[in-house]
């Protein structure tokens, strides 16, 4: 199952991160996880939210540039080498990872990672073939509760 991630363009100035987060909060939308990639000059805020379509609307109405991208959430064993095992599979299959970040799961033995692949379909296929568990959206929402 693919997930929709929202990305928001931010200038790298003090206070620029607060405003979109506040707008989402004001709309009563829960942020499941986020990551910020930045350069000295600008940043990209990446968000997984409960209701991404509404969140996108809220952000766009607020004047932000937003796009939505398909990402995949993968279950990783919360033990040494857990991530390495997943990366090895992807690497051997020649799947390119654009970026990844952690999802804070509440389950004690599981970690969850959000992957942005160059080719999402191919990545999904590879992960499933190797018996790795892809977390679907509803489960994610549940996990964050």
């Amino acid at each position, binding site marked *: 199952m693919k997930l929709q991630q929202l990305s928001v363009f931010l*200038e790298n100035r003090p206070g620029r991160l607060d405003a979109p987060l506040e707008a989402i909060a004001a709309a009563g939308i829960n942020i499941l996880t986020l990551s910020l990639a930045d350069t000295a000059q600008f940043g990209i805020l990446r968000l997984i939210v409960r209701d991404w379509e509404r969140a996108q609307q809220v952000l766009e109405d607020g004047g932000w540039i937003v796009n939505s991208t398909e990402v995949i959430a993968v279950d990783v064993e919360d033990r040494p080498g857990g991530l390495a095992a997943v990366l090895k599979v992807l690497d051997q299959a020649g799947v390119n990872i654009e970026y990844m970040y952690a999802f804070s799961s509440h389950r004690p033995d599981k970690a969850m990672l959000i992957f942005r692949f160059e080719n999402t379909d191919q990545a999904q296929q590879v992960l499933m073939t190797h018996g790795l568990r892809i977390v679907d959206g509803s489960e994610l929402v549940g996990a964050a509760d």
Partner: protein
Amino acid sequence: MVTSPPSRIWNIAAETQSIQARTALQLTRLRALIERVNHQVPFYREALQRAGISADQFKHLEDVRRLPFTTKADFRQQHPLGLLAVPRHEIARIHGSSGTTGTPTFVAYTKNDLQIWAELCARFLFAGGLEPQHTVQIAFGYGLFTGGFGLHYGVECIGAAIIPAAAGNTRRQIALLRDLTPDVLICTPSYALTIADAARELDLDSRSLSLQYGHFGGEPWSDDLRLQIERELNITAFNNYGLSEVIGPGVSGECSARTGMHIQDDHFLIECLDPDTLEPVPDGELGELVITTLTREAMPVLRYRTRDLARIYRDPCPCGRTSIRMSRVTGRTDDMLIIRGVNVFPSQIEEALLRVEGTTAHYLIEVERPHILDEVTIKVEIQRELFSDRMDQMQRLRERIRHEIQTVAGIRAQIELVEPRTIERFTGKATRVIDRRHLIT
């Protein structure tokens, strides 16, 4: 600092000609020019016919005001050589200037044009003290740009030695200055300061170099900058003016009295007009310079609107030259910027941005001179079509914009992507440029 005696006149007959004789010469040349372009240049033939003008109607110099104007747009429209007034095989050289569309506008010269050009440069170089035994370092660009070659042949005309260093490679410039001990430096004023600065970094005393004089042009500069250059290089700094559409450097230049730049008015007829009414402004008042080339063969120009704002003076100069003089250029009637000696129009930036799909016309050009050299930052509002969640794509976008701007406008700029609607919207004419250099004081 050395001051040259006021009597240094290269072409005494031409430069000290009585005003009546020069006026008569100008009128004769103007009539011949109209005759020539009427026969040789379809563009002018049509314009003259439209205006119902023929050469024999010209009884007074003031009649020049009946002639049609020529603009930069005409040069573009006649690209590449539509304004040529001689058969192609008579061209001896072609130079070009940066155009507003990325294509240079070309200017052609016959052999005779080149000789006159060299003499015109020699006139102001000689006025500034240049002697055949001197050595001159030319740190102007050699190429399509008229600066390098124009001054080069001017120096040759006098017979001085030339170090054709060309622009750039500042460390090497300093090594040449140190090792070959030239007397004269020719470049843009800002590059003169760069050289002085770099000399200090290399632990050389920029004031103790062999230089005596400098001839600077190619970009607007203030009297403050002149004083700074003179102080830092321990030289006398002279200003000269020209533009490629009419010839290049050599239209005017200072004598040792430095009471304005002597216009070589046996070769150029200069009007100073109110850019809105196109009526002449009184002497000493700011107006747009409009230039008619009286002797150019390959590409003569009628009433070229330079867009440069300056003042004209007719009072006598203590040096004995009888020409009219002009002030330094204190501004432009259009939005052209000169960035490190390169002419740049905001429309070029716009064009470059449009080449990157998805960018809109929301941009702002900020020009600063933090130290010596101009720095340009272009703020571009990010659009949805351009935005990617991937950092590498975003960096590639900035790189693409930077590359397009370099291709179209010929300048290196910092690209700053900004959030939508952060660049102020203007109800009237948009302000695309914030120039913090305070060039003209």
